[in-house]
């Protein structure tokens, strides 16, 4: 990390502050506020990208010194940052996605002109980018928690930005509550670490777990898993995610799904790989199992959605699961003493983290453009948009192929690395535990195939066939800056897919820091054109090779056309409608119908209910009026959270007796508590 990169990083942080201030200064002039706030954010994010790439490309040197941002006025609370490789990698992620979202927002925010206060919106947006960057860089527990809280609060404000809608208000409250349960767990976890280290600086925490007793160490593991897991949206702590992400404005949804849930992944990586020392086996097993369950259930719930943004939100849960599969396998390999495989699994997890950030942000931006054009999030009222919004459709298609883990795009590459580490992991231990690796690999395959089914539905119903509503028929292409933002992320998807070995070079310092070795020389063959598993005999893959090969085969259909089909004509005609008088949009397959086979196959999970009410004159086959309703039960909501909610209400109703409003009674409570504590201290 040279001086220039460090300065650029500080400029980035200052730029976000400037953006926030500029937004607040231009409260009255909404156009100016839009340009100043989002322009500042875009420039700062660009600085962040450059700074973090140069920092990572410099390789793993000595640990960078920590920088003091503000003078420390309170003991223990140090406002210091340390741009170490792990932090820089995540800074790259937030800056890259932040850049694209800021550009997109320049156009998207026009939809709020005259309705909402854009200065405030832009200010919150900048502050949340600033806080997220600081979460990744901070070097002190208190500073980390302060940045974490500012991030949570600004996101809450952004989620409930359209507070005139009840949905947004409720989503905001749910997010707020869950987020603070998580923060509580984090505070307890960090206090346990503090007991062992005696300092609140992150440098004092390095490998502190080795010096802790088993009890507090395991307790810290669980507390961090819950605390960071809530933010990341692992099942069963995910319930806020499919509510909050869709309710927010679309650029904020992209920000949350792309970046903010990754702070949970950052926290888990930081704590488990940097702080906690050599892990016992059950840690890795737990993380791997949670990852697998989150991946499969996330995609299954996504399939049941016909709200475009909720569908995407559930896919975030799935992808967080895939990331955790990599991290869990890495922990298991660390336990059995296989640093090479641990690095491979870690790389798989981190690669999928940046991939998911890029394609999920892309998909949410596309969804935002579609929602703005059609005024609905319900896929059943869309359709035919590929002709009306061709560029958005193309970008969304690229994102859909990427998220379905199909070659030659980035989702495939990181899942390929995950498969490789799982398969190689079979040989690491003689116990029965090793069967978990191929079984979770099979579940990953199920996840990938279901994701492909889900995105055939999402793209097919939204963009193809005939428009299903008047709004969809009148839709127009999104504003140019919105397309620029999406195009940037599309290019990133293609780049991350075609040139993984270049990206792995940037990951070298990270694995050096966390697992003590650099893997990119082993993983790249043939001058970086071919990606290899941890051992070269384990398997190779080359995305540019496949693309080039396909190009080389292009003369084949051309030749066939020249020989056979030169005289053939192409005619446009109506789709076969079984002899009826014209095809109407109502005859096309719906999103609900598309996922019906899966709903029936997994009915033990979904418990589908449907109600059909027919009004008819003489025969039920000729209904004059038909009402159809179909529900899917969200098991975690109805079986865990509702009963818990009810319990809390009951207990608090009982507690009301304590809070009688009498001052004397309160004084007695305080006295008794004090007495008990003193007794306890003896």
């Amino acid at each position, binding site marked *: 990390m040279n001086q220039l990169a460090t300065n650029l990083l500080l400029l980035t942080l200052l730029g976000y502050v400037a953006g926030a201030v500029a937004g607040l200064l231009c409260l009255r002039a909404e156009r100016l506020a839009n340009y100043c706030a989002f322009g500042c954010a875009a420039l700062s994010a660009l600085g962040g990208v450059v700074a973090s790439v140069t920092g990572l490309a410099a390789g793993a040197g000595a640990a960078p010194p920590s920088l003091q941002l503000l003078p420390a006025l309170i003991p223990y609370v140090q406002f210091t940052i340390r741009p170490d490789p792990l932090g820089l990698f995540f800074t790259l992620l937030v800056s890259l996605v932040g850049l694209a979202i800021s550009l997109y927002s320049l156009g998207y925010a026009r939809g709020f002109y005259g309705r909402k206060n854009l200065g405030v919106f832009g200010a919150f947006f900048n502050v949340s980018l600033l806080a997220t960057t600081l979460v990744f860089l901070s070097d002190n527990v208190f500073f980390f928690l302060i940045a974490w809280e500012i991030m949570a609060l600004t996101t809450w404000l952004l989620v409930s930005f359209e507070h005139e809608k009840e949905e947004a208000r409720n989503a905001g409250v749910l997010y707020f509550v869950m987020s603070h349960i998580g923060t509580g767990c984090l505070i307890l976890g960090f206090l346990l670490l503090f007991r062992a280290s005696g300092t609140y600086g992150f440098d004092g925490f390095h490998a502190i777990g080795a010096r802790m007793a088993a009890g507090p160490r395991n307790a810290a593991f669980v507390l961090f898993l819950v605390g960071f897991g809530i933010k990341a949206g692992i099942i069963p702590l995910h319930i806020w995610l499919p509510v909050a992400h869709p309710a927010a404005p679309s650029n904020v949804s992209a920000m949350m799904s792309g970046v903010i849930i990754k702070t949970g992944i950052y926290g888990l990586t930081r704590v488990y790989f940097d702080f906690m020392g050599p892990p016992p086996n059950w840690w890795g097993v737990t993380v791997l199992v949670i990852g697998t369950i989150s991946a499969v259930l996330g995609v299954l719930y996504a399939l049941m959605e016909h709200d475009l943004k909720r569908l995407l939100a559930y896919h975030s849960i799935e992808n967080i699961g895939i990331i955790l599969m990599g991290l869990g396998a890495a922990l298991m390999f660390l336990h059995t003493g296989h640093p090479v495989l641990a690095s491979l699994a870690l790389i798989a997890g981190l690669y999928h983290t940046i991939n998911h950030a890029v394609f999920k942000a892309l998909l949410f931006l596309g969804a935002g453009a579609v929602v703005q054009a059609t005024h609905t999030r319900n896929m059943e009222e869309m359709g035919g948009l590929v002709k009306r919004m061709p560029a958005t459709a193309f970008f969304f298609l690229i994102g859909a192929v990427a998220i379905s883990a199909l070659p030659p795009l980035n989702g495939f590459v990181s899942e390929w690395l995950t498969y490789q580490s799982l*398969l190689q992991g079979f040989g690491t231990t003689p116990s029965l535990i090793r069967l978990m690796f191929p079984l979770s690999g099979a579940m990953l395959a199920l996840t990938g195939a279901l994701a*492909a089914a889900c995105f055939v539905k999402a793209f097919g119903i939204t963009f193809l066939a005939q428009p299903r509503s008047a709004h969809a028929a009148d839709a127009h292409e999104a504003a140019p800056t919105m397309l620029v933002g999406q195009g940037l992320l599309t290019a990133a998807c293609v780049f991350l897919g075609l040139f993984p070995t270049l990206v792995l070079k940037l990951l070298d310092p990270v694995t050096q820091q966390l697992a003590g070795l650099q893997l990119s020389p082993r993983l790249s063959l043939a001058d970086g054109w071919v990606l290899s598993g941890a051992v070269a005999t384990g398997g190779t893959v080359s995305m540019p090779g496949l693309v080039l090969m396909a190009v080389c085969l292009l003369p084949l259909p051309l030749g066939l056309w020249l020989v056979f089909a030169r005289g053939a004509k192409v005619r446009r005609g109506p789709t076969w409608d079984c002899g009826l008088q014209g095809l109407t949009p109502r005859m096309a*397959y719906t999103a609900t119908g598309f996922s019906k086979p899966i709903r029936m196959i997994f009915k033990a999970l979904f418990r589908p209910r449907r109600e059909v009410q027919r009004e008819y004159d003489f025969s039920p086959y000729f209904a004059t009026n038909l009402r159809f309703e179909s529900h899917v039960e969200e098991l975690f909501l109805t079986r865990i959270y509702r009963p818990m909610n009810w319990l809390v209400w009951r207990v608090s109703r009982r507690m009301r007796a304590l809070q009688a409003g009498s001052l004397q009674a309160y004084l007695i409570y305080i006295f008794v508590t004090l007495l008990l504590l003193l007794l306890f201290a003896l």
Partner: protein
Amino acid sequence: MNLDVTAIILQTALLLLLAPLVSGVIRKGKARLQNRRGPPVWQPYLDLRKFLRKDMVISEHASWIFSFAPYVVFFTALLAGLMVPMVTVQAPLSLFGGVLALVGLLALGRFFLALGGLDPASAFGGMGSSREMTIAAIAEPALMLAIFTVAIAAGSTDLSRIVAATLGPTWSLLNPRHVLAFAALFIVLLAETGRIPVDNPATHLELTMIHEAMLLEYSGRYLAFMEWGASLKQLVLMTLLVNVFFPLGLAPVTTPAALAFSLLAYLAKLFVVSSIVVVVETTNAKLRLFRVPDLLSAAFVLAALALLSTFLFQ
């Protein structure tokens, strides 16, 4: 680790020429078992030529996706085929991807096939897409687990290395791991290639068809590429099945004599597998759609048992 251009060209040619023949042989075999004379085995070639020459009618609702899909289906199946060892142990393109890339490429083809089904706004296409994606999704874990079983034994996902590992002196016909994984993969083959009892390739009965429903709006050369792609995919999966589990006769060296023997052995093995498919198709009825998951979970259990036997018999 160099790419052998001759090998690539030869295997491409072999794939393209052999794929329709396998479909033709299966059709002929089914006809014979039903006491019909049936069309000649080279009928699929004639069909392809006819489709290529015909004019096309494209639905007025369709977009560029509809025209793009046939090429994706065709190319992905072809590229996947270049990663499978056919007559030599070394597959021409195994440097560019192993079995994971093969499954990924076939999935990419399926993705666009399903989009092509949805594009013309017809209810049949949507129905076909929905069912195709569902069946593929529940077949995928069984497919992957069976593949993992052999990949773990070989320590590689590279199909050339997998074949080289099974080709060794330890190969035996009744290795429990191989038998179970073979059974699982065979069921997956039936599902993935749209055979009875999962789908009926000969039907145009509107409510039961899956693959045909997606192709309903295709005509002319697009249909030719779709059909060719489907038969290529079938050939690729069959080759995977015969050469991974019965690598006998595969040429480790590239002398003309060894290649000729290997080609004959390969054709014989393909003929045997095609015959099994014919018998299965003739003696079974098509399952109801919601019974298909039972069949595929049986495949998954078989693959899991294969994996477990790796663990037990080591």
